[in-house]
């Protein structure tokens, strides 16, 4: 039984590569159809100096300037949200936790609305900063004598979420229809405007956060047993929690700032991974990253091609991801104890 999980893990390791390849081939424009793309590669690989027909240029531009950055962005965002969700669920020892529990999503949404309405800050930066701010407020509100109780953290997260949601509603109310539409659009979650610029602005915090969470993946096992158990075996629970919290917030705030709100993703994927691979975070973290990334990429591919207009990715995630999750729920052990 252990070995076929190992085989499954092996499959997951190699999955991203073909999925990325296939994703490059999918898209809404007719010019970049399969035959044309094959034509393009053929052209590329042949060393003779051809007349650079505009069609070839266009295809090149679409593949490398439009699709590839979007693919990478979708993958990284999916991976960042899943890895953060997994880390947070371990720290909080609570299955209902996602990267949004501390007010991150409401703060980021407000930040984006704020930027879209007033135009003084770039939207991404504003979303990122306000996401961080929300978590910081939740955290300091729950801090008592240098100790953090999980319950008070979740409580303050709920309150802070509420505050920023109220502020968001206010901004929406005061905005003219144009800006309102932009705000709503942003909140629904989308990769419409993905490009190399966007990717480069978000990649550093995402990679940093993911890296730290990967580094700490075994220590998450220890934290997950309990504060007393962690402390008595030599790990400082509060310090570890802060580090993991910071890393998860960094990664997810960056993810939200470029992708909008993709609901419940950081909740569902860690659960799925745990159901299939068990709760050991040593393997679980890597699986979270790979599966989280691949899955979101597939969902984004679907949202790009299925309809003429683009369905917001947050919507599709829920419509596809949730039933799949329910199916797994019925089939197997939830991977959690009551």
């Amino acid at each position, binding site marked *: 039984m252990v070995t076929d999980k190992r085989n499954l893990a092996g499959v997951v390791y190699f999955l991203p590569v073909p999925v990325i390849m296939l994703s490059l081939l999918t898209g809404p424009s007719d010019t970049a159809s399969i035959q044309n793309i094959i034509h393009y590669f053929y052209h590329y690989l042949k060393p003779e100096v051809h007349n650079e027909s505009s069609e070839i240029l266009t295809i090149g531009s679409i593949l490398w300037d*439009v*699709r590839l950055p979007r693919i990478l962005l979708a993958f990284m965002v999916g991976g960042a949200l899943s890895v953060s969700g997994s880390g947070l669920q371990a720290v909080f020892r609570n299955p209902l936790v996602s990267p949004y529990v501390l007010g991150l999503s409401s703060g980021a949404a407000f930040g984006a609305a704020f930027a879209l309405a007033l135009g003084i800050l770039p939207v991404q930066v504003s979303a990122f900063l306000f996401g961080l701010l929300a978590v910081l407020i939740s955290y300091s509100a729950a801090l008592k004598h240098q100790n953090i109780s999980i319950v008070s953290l979740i409580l303050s997260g709920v309150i802070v979420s509420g505050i920023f949601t109220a502020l968001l509603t206010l901004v929406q109310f005061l905005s003219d229809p144009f800006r309102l539409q932009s705000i709503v659009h942003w909140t629904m979650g989308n990769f419409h405007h993905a490009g190399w610029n966007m990717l480069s602005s978000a990649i550093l915090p995402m990679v940093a956060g993911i890296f730290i969470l990967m580094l700490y993946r075994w220590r998450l096992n220890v934290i997950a047993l309990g504060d007393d158990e962690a402390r008595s075996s030599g790990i400082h629970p509060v310090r570890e929690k802060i580090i993991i919290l910071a890393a998860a917030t960094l990664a997810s705030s960056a993810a939200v700032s470029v992708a909008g709100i993709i609901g419940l993703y950081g909740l569902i994927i860690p659960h799925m991974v745990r159901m299939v691979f068990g709760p050991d975070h040593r393997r679980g973290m890597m699986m979270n990253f790979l599966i989280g990334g691949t899955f979101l990429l597939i969902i984004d591919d679907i949202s790009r091609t299925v309809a003429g207009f683009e369905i917001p990715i947050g919507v599709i995630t829920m419509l596809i991801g949730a039933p799949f999750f329910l199916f797994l729920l019925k089939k197997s052990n939830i991977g959690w104890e009551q």
Partner: protein
Amino acid sequence: MMKSVQYLITALTGLALIWAVSCQQSGYRKQPGALTVTDFRGKVINFAEPPVKIICLIESALSGFYMLHAGNRIIGISSNVYEEPVYSYYAGLDDRIRNKTLPAPGNWDFISIENLVALRPDLVVIWASQTEAIQSLEGRGIPVYAVMLHSLNDIYKEIRDLGVLTGAMTRADSLINYTQHELDALYLKVKQAGLPRRSVYFMWPKGPLETSGTQSTVNELIELAGARNACMMPQEHIVVNIEKLIEWNPEVIVMWYDPVRNPEDILKIVGWERIEAIRKNHVFEIPSVFEGDLWTLKFVNTVKLLNHWCYPELTSAGEVETSKQKMLKSLYGDR
């Protein structure tokens, strides 16, 4: 051994990713050139020659292109052009639209980057509020002319700039002159009549209490028509309290084209019976968005409509109709 190989691969992939990403950052390449316009963001846009392939994602600006007889430069439009009530008008203006062969890679609130890039435009005309779209376009080296209209003078600027960009500056000037001439004529007429300014309450289709205040294009229209805005507050878009509305007691109520409500519905609203406009049955609806589009030079038509409704003794319905036909002919030409 497997472990360290895994680490190595992961680290290399991470580094490769970051390197690739930083290499790819392209910026907006400035082209030196003879044609220069400043768009509504204050950004200066240069062209050596008038751009030949233009994607226009603003329906009202699209009208402007056709008025300038530069419709042939358009290679992409916003998808709402294919919807009624404007579709039939544009189908008349351009065969490509009638046959639905003109691509629509976006709308007033979103764009499909891939489709847009595939068209390889020289210029994209888009609302300035779509900041993310603009960023991703300019980041790929595609020039963007961003529009934000707050006043009627802005409409003049837009036409002028589009004229520069399409090499149709003389035509642009003549269009503006024509419009201004019509407005001046109306102004004289109203002044000579010497009637007191009647109060008008403007209603948006979003809801009966949605209106525009004194710092808005709507306000300008009302004033040009010789009347005054019943709404005293400054905001461009505002939801007012019904008590305030009753206090202002407008003499005329004008509805923007509303697919759902008619003047009869407004007359029936409970609580509004005391308002003078209701009592005197002075509730009107702008019949066609296209013919009186506030964001184009056709706003003149709306002004005249307003004028007719407020001062029926001055301007008859027939006069308005004739001048409208004349306007459409002058602006668009024979189609």
